[in-house]
């Protein structure tokens, strides 16, 4: 197998993520790239604009670690649990530092990324009209529909400096198969200037070529490929491991104070070298509980004469 763009997360972050960058760690609940987030924290990146519809725990951690200057988001909650306390502490009290926000609805932010991925001038959408958000966000404008004369809400394209996208399987050049909740993974990869892929499995190119409609990200938009099993824990990877819902609930407790949060980060992020060490700290029993039984897709034929 060719080694292609294969590298370590340490190398990939060191090479492609710079202080002050606008970054998008993709994922809608599914396949949130925790391993990349932790490595960015270990490399002490500062003044980042963190973008994602659902910041999730990983951005809460990065805010607590002081990496964040601005949060671009549409739902800053702990999905299924409640608040993101580090986000609120930064916004309401400036701990560890004040952060700015750039806020949208889900449709608005996923629309910005889609418009960025497809390089549109702007994207008209049926939302925001009547809401109090547009007066707070100068990126939300209106345009007159030349066919009906109606005022239509529009958003500008989003083109982050870096996207990190976790995938189930890819080849060593980054041709990636993704399934389950595919969220904004494809759009993030096409919108960003630099793309880091982390993958549960690196497979032969022939596996990818056996099902080209499953390839949401083609290699030539990818800059680095990291083989990083369990990269998403406590988030999940469909067919590989489930979401660690217990941890999502514990996070609410862990983050009650900034000190307790930092204690967690010292142990689980700064106290380990990489994802492998992180996983070694988790009890096998807990890991076993997250392993699903296989549930295989019915294959299809791509044959031609």
């Amino acid at each position, binding site marked *: 197998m060719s080694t292609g763009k294969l590298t370590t997360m340490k190398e990939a972050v060191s090479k492609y993520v710079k202080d002050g960058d606008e970054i998008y760690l993709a994922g809608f609940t599914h396949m949130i790239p925790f391993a990349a987030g932790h490595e960015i924290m270990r490399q002490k990146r500062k003044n980042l604009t963190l973008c994602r519809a659902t910041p999730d725990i990983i951005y809460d951690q990065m805010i607590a670690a002081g990496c964040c200057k601005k949060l671009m988001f549409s739902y800053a909650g702990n999905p299924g649990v409640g608040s993101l306390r580090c986000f609120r502490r930064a916004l309401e009290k400036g701990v560890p530092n004040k952060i700015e926000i750039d806020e949208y609805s889900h449709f608005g932010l996923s629309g910005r990324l889609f418009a960025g991925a497809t390089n549109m001038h702007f994207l008209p959408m049926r939302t925001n009209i009547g809401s109090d958000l547009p007066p707070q966000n100068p990126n939300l404008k209106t345009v007159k529909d030349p066919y009906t004369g109606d005022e239509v809400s529009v958003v500008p394209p989003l083109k982050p400096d870096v996207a990190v996208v976790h995938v189930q399987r890819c080849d060593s050049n980054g041709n990636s198969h993704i399934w389950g*909740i595919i969220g904004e993974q494809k759009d993030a990869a096409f919108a960003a200037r630099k793309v880091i892929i982390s993958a549960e499995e690196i497979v032969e190119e022939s596996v990818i070529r056996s099902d080209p409609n499953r390839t949401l990200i083609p290699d030539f938009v990818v800059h680095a490929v990291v083989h990083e099993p369990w990269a998403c824990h406590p988030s999940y990877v469909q067919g590989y491991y489930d979401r660690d819902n217990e941890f999502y609930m514990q996070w609410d407790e862990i983050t009650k104070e900034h000190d307790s949060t930092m204690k967690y980060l010292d142990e689980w992020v700064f106290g380990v070298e990489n994802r492998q060490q992180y996983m070694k700290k988790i009890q096998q029993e807990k890991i076993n509980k997250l392993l*699903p039984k296989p549930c295989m897709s019915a294959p299809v034929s791509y044959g031609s004469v």
Partner: protein
Amino acid sequence: MSECTPSELMVAVAARELKDHDTVLVGVGIPNLAANLAKKLQAPNLVMVYESGAVGSNPTRMPLSIGDPCLVTGAKSVCSMYEQFAYYLQGGRIDVGFLGGAQIDKYGNINSTVIGSYKTPKVRLPGSGGACDIASNVKKIIVITPHEKRRFVEKVDFLTSPGFVDGKEKWKLLKLQGGGPYAVITNLCTMKFDDVTGEMMVASLHPGVTIEKVWENTPWKVNVAAKLEQTPPPTEREISALRALDPSKTYLG
């Protein structure tokens, strides 16, 4: 009437609003239970669509978030996030959307963004998520909420998701494709909206509840429909089907 908790009552009443073949945008928790209850009873062909892109999910356990993997295993279809909002919601293909929030006002406007001012928040809430998009595009918005004075306000601190905004006349000028707020279901009553003004009004009192009790728990003297109804109490069948959906009482406690 079966003995039931306030949550059970709200879910049972909300489920009745769903018709067979309706497409419903479902959130986790209470709305998920209402949709699943309707599917078990009068709406076997209910189409459940999730913000996460899953359509026609067939979960074998209670999903813990709208992005739960059990909503994908055995679903009919899954698409990307932009596609879900664009093809389904903006596409005008969703009949009913369930919303909740920290505050709701007399025009059905919902605040899930901030208590206090946007620039200097007293309490920063999670924000819209898909709520503003849902409110703007579904044919019927249904709100399920406990009837508490801090939740019902004359004017929301921040309008996250449009109800009838400043009233139905002005709302029409905005030309949203959605039908606007349809019902607010609390533990005390079901409220609907005046066809002309777009103002909230009590349409049906739940078993054992008086209009005075509603007024006591609402900060303004909410209007009453011309024909005030009595909510039929949940049946044994409704309650037992409902409890089977949440045996561990995660949401029905």
